[in-house]
């Protein structure tokens, strides 16, 4: 890839990024265009990946070499599309039921083993090393086991929650809250990481080797907003964008 292409790429990427961010200020045509471009580009990328990784090597080529067995899954797969034609949409059931049956059948024993039995074992197992455990470790293992039971009480719907049951299930809620708190804290970090990634790219494109793509595009967009609000841009009904 020549350098010209790389610079063009930098401008393209910086522009699309800034257009999408511009929505934070206000809805505008650049954002809308970029957003629709995103939908199309995503589909386009997936389409070519499916085409060159699956449809061609796993369906088309075997067919050409006379392996007509692949017609069965291909037809089942194509049947899904009939969903869009109400009169014959029942045909799509053949594909769906196959997928659902496969998925459900695969999941049942595996879920039982991984998320049910192994989790019971995980609560009990630590106590086999009772002799070598420190008091803190015993405490922690008891908290894990006891907390799990309290949470399960909270999700137990067959008895009314009052008296002792209510107390236990209330403790359960606090375990859930700590878990959600951890999830919240981590989500903050995750979202910031993504933003950091974009800013980092914008910073790269703001260099002289990209002819200051980020700055120029940003200034251009700001200029658009200023001009737009001066020249007949209708005042939006609300102070804040609808979003």
């Amino acid at each position, binding site marked *: 890839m020549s350098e010209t292409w790389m610079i063009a790429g930098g401008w393209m990427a910086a522009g699309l990024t800034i257009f999408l961010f511009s929505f934070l200020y206000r809805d505008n045509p650049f954002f809308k265009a970029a957003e629709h471009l995103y939908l199309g580009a995503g589909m386009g990328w997936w389409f070519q990946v499916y085409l060159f990784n699956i449809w061609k090597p796993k369906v088309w080529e075997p067919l050409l070499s006379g392996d007509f067995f692949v017609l069965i899954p291909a037809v089942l797969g194509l049947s899904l599309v009939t969903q869009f034609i109400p009169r014959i949409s029942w045909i799509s059931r053949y594909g769906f039921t196959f997928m659902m049956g496969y998925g459900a059948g695969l999941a049942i024993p595996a879920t039982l*083993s991984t998320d049910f*039995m192994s*989790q019971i074992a995980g609560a009990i197992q630590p*106590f086999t090393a*009772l002799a070598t455990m420190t008091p803190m470790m015993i405490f922690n293992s008891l908290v894990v086991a006891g907390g799990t039971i309290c949470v*399960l*009480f909270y999700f*137990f719907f067959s008895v009314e*929650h009052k008296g002792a049951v209510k107390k236990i299930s209330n403790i359960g809620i606090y375990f859930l809250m700590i878990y959600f708190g951890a999830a919240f804290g981590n*989500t903050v970090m995750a979202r910031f990481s993504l933003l950091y990634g974009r800013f980092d790219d914008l910073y790269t494109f703001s260099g002289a080797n990209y002819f200051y793509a980020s700055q120029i595009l940003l200034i251009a967009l700001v200029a658009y907003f200023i001009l737009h609000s001066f020249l007949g841009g209708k005042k939006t009904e609300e102070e804040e964008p609808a979003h």
Partner: protein
Amino acid sequence: MTKNKIKALIILLLTAGPVLAVAGGKAAPGTIDGFTAVDMPYDAGASVLLKWPVGPSDSADASYVVYGSSLAEGGWRKGEEFVATAKTCKDINLPFWAWDSGEAQHALKVELNTLFGDIPPGTPLKFKAQLLRKGSVEAESPAVDAASKSNWFRLDRLNNLLFLLVMIVIFFWAVSHAKRKGLFIRRIAGLDAIDEAIGRATEMGKPIFYVPGIGTMSSISTIASAFILGEVSKKVAQYDSDIKIPHYDPIVMTVCKEIVKQSYLEAGRPDSYREDMNFFVSADQFSYAASVDGMISREKPAACFFMGYFMAESLLLAEVGAASGAIQIAGTDIESQLPFFFTACDYTLIGEELYAAGAYLSKEPMLVSALKVQDFGKLVVMASVSLGIVLVSLGTKLHWDFFVRVILNLFKAY
């Protein structure tokens, strides 16, 4: 083919080398008695089980080597080599009902693919073992015939199968039972607020937003959401309030249209039902969230329901609802989104509460019986964990090793 032959020849030379050298030495090697080679049980036929008694001369400075040979190729291939004190029956990871894990026998599982490459089950094979000390062969077993075979049952997974069977039995029992008479479900806090929310909407003359999220009809939370919608819209019809249901998935929309229509019919107000109560917004996550946000901040509804499958858009939705001053009731089983709902909404149904809410409101026998099976499963877990901890602690304290093993094996996945 020729390549394989050459490989076999090289291996033959390599393995024959030391054997010849030893044979040329002074002491003739002793024999390892009781060496057996049988098919490895409970597998598809890709491995063979070698067993021989632990001998008095097994010590850390000696090692065992096993050899395998296929009749088609002839010649010995060298398999695993390990310290003579290692690899007894105890090291084979099988439960007590399927395996005797004494330490009196060496046991080694030979993966045929590693040793011979791709060979079908049933191929006649030969195996032998040697005891090496300081580079020389101290003892050797006679060559033993063996063939692997495809087995019909994973006895080691019996515990899993039993759990499953119990669950299926309970499930069908609950299904047939639920049809006969109603089963009890406890009160769910967030649901009491529904009446309040709808009442408020009627007073204020403002609409209610019911957002079913971005799931498809195959996700449990969306199904639960659809049932809750049925009850909510029934109440809306009774109070003569207005409800708006923006959609992400066209199929969910068709299902919801039917449900709302039915509710209005049941409430005796089919005339108030409008087709445009359910409307399609967008099949893109963020466009959907942005449009719904726009509607909420424009129309300032009296109440917002967010029930179903939500991903990153949850925080966009909940925030706008909170800012517009609506009563917000949320429910989802996506844990990473629950914190946002919990902090921004007035009531939040957490995980399974959402499923239970569907059952609680609709009294649909299928949903109620499923809930009963789930409760039964939880009861099993609570009992097993508490009992298990007591028994295992006791067993460990008193050194009842087999007893502890029995309990652990029961819940171990193989």
